[in-house]
């Protein structure tokens, strides 16, 4: 196993970590800043992915799309549509208490998944969509991955800066005030539901963007990509571990969990054959256990939310 191999593996992991970090940042907006338990991340991820796919892919019989627009438009479209569907969902669901919101968003994501699987004319159904262009796709293996990684990191940086800026702005303070004491915030005249909806839409648009980035990497999208385990729960665990309420924590959580997820498989594969299949299930067990340990020993995560004083002292 040589250096080029390891480097390619690292580049690949970087790309997936970057995409998951985006999702984690977005979930941080929902949960960390606004206190919204969104258990339907997969739904917004899916919408963004499919919108970008439909806009940029080559035509295929029996399905709308094939507009073959430039990739950038695909990504913009993904963000716009994901944010747009967050509006009615938010209006309907956000007034629910946190447990109920979790169940409702879980249900919404499942409905989105069923619609995607069943409406062939829109999404290609279970066949999915192929022929999606990939930026820098014509380069060599390593160069192509490196270029795509650079792209993902650029997007991640842009989003991170945007979110951080919002956090330190009056908007961010208001969101935290609403999250921590809704009654007081409302008494001060803040339009609580409107602000919550804004945060919900903002986060969902970013989830859509992450979906778009994912789709272009693989040049294809099929409904299995929006399985709740891999597209919702893993991200929740990343955020809790990394530190909800802290953007750097969100990114760190994505890094740590994905590393564990990916590298643990290499250990289990080296076990004897009969045990190797079982070992795949044990991976899931370990992830669940990690969540318990974090909740017990360090519920604020690796990088806790900064206190107000810390926030103001850093420019």
């Amino acid at each position, binding site marked *: 196993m040589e250096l080029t191999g390891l480097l390619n593996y690292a580049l690949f992991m970087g790309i997936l970590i970057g995409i998951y970090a985006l999702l984690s940042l977005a979930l941080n907006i929902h949960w960390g800043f606004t206190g919204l338990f969104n258990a339907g991340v997969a739904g917004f991820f899916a919408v963004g992915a499919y919108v970008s796919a439909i806009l940029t892919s080559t035509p295929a019989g029996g399905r709308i799309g094939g507009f073959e627009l430039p990739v950038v438009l695909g990504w913009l479209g993904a963000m716009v549509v994901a944010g747009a569907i967050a509006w009615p969902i938010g209006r309907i669901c956000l007034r629910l*208490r946190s447990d109920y919101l979790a169940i409702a968003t879980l249900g919404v994501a499942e409905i989105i998944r069923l619609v995607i699987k069943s409406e062939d004319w829109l999404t290609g159904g279970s066949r999915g969509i192929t022929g999606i262009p990939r930026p820098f796709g014509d380069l060599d293996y390593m160069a192509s991955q490196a270029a795509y990684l650079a792209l993902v990191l650029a997007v991640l940086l842009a989003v991170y800066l945007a979110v951080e800026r919002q956090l330190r702005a009056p908007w961010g303070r208001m969101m935290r005030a609403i999250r921590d004491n809704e009654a007081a915030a409302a008494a001060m005249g803040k339009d609580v539901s409107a602000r919550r909806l804004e945060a919900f839409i903002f986060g969902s648009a970013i989830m859509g963007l992450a979906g778009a980035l994912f789709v272009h990497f693989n040049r294809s999208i099929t409904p299995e990509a929006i399985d709740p385990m891999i597209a919702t729960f893993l991200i*929740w665990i990343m955020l809790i571990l990394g530190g909800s309420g802290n953007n750097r924590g969100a990114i760190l959580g994505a890094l740590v969990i994905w590393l564990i997820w990916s590298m643990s498989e290499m250990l289990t594969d080296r076990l004897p054959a009969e045990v190797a299949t079982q070992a795949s299930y044990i991976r899931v*067990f370990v992830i669940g256990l990690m969540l*318990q340990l974090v909740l017990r020993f360090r519920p604020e995560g690796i990088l806790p939310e900064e206190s107000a004083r810390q926030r103001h002292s850093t420019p």
Partner: protein
Amino acid sequence: MSAIDFINFYVVPGLVLGSIYAVGAIGITMVFGILRFAHFAHGDMATLGAFIALAFVGTGLDPWTALPLAMLVTAVVAVGIDKTFYDYLVKRPKILTVMASLGIALMIRSVVQVVWGVDPQPYVRGIVRPDSFGGILLRPRELYTLATVVVLVVGLVAFLHYTRWGKAMRAMSDNPDLARLSGVDNRQVTMLTWAIVGALTAASGFMLGINTELNSMMGWHMLLPMFAAAILGGVGRVEGAVLGGLIVGLAEEMSVLIVPSQYKMATAFVILLLILLLRPSGLLKGKVL
């Protein structure tokens, strides 16, 4: 379609499914009511209960004899899980317990997969043709399922209303602080609640398994319908959970009359969203958490 066909192929399966959901929903509504959080590990606990029953059947027992044993074991497991993973979160925001229960769901599921594998397995091999009761087709296992549900529900309601412990549970559900002041030991009530919940989920998992097959995802797929049933009926109301379960079960089976069958799964979700929007306190006016 004739009336008898409608009853046999839509109503009866709907009622059987509905009773399975009902028993599960009772557990969910109890956890909502007394412990005040959404128990996301409920479905996978049902799976565990079903497979524990399978283990007993493997030793030569008849399935329906294995049921009470499985219920007992699962009750103990439920209490154990609470002591180990939920206890230290009691003082913290409930949302953390919800997240913990998500993690527990994954853990239980992987244990089932490691121990029993992922192939579907039946309790009993072969097929069972139904008997005809004046045109209505019913199998013994379906009759037993309906009977078991009735026994469990009646037993539980009686327990909650006429025994000291039952009253303590209801007190804690209404107002935990006041209950503590009146001498109710919340920790013991919590343990008792988990024991009952564990037993009930095992029963619902078993009944699902005996009417179809067992597989490691069976409980997870029931989770959202069970939540829908509990919320539909009114959180914290046992009778509500039963009513909600029956409605969700019937609605699912009859949905194929209206929508393409791929969307059968969506029925429960749609009911859930509708009730959350229109009447979050549920049909029988339960709590709104």
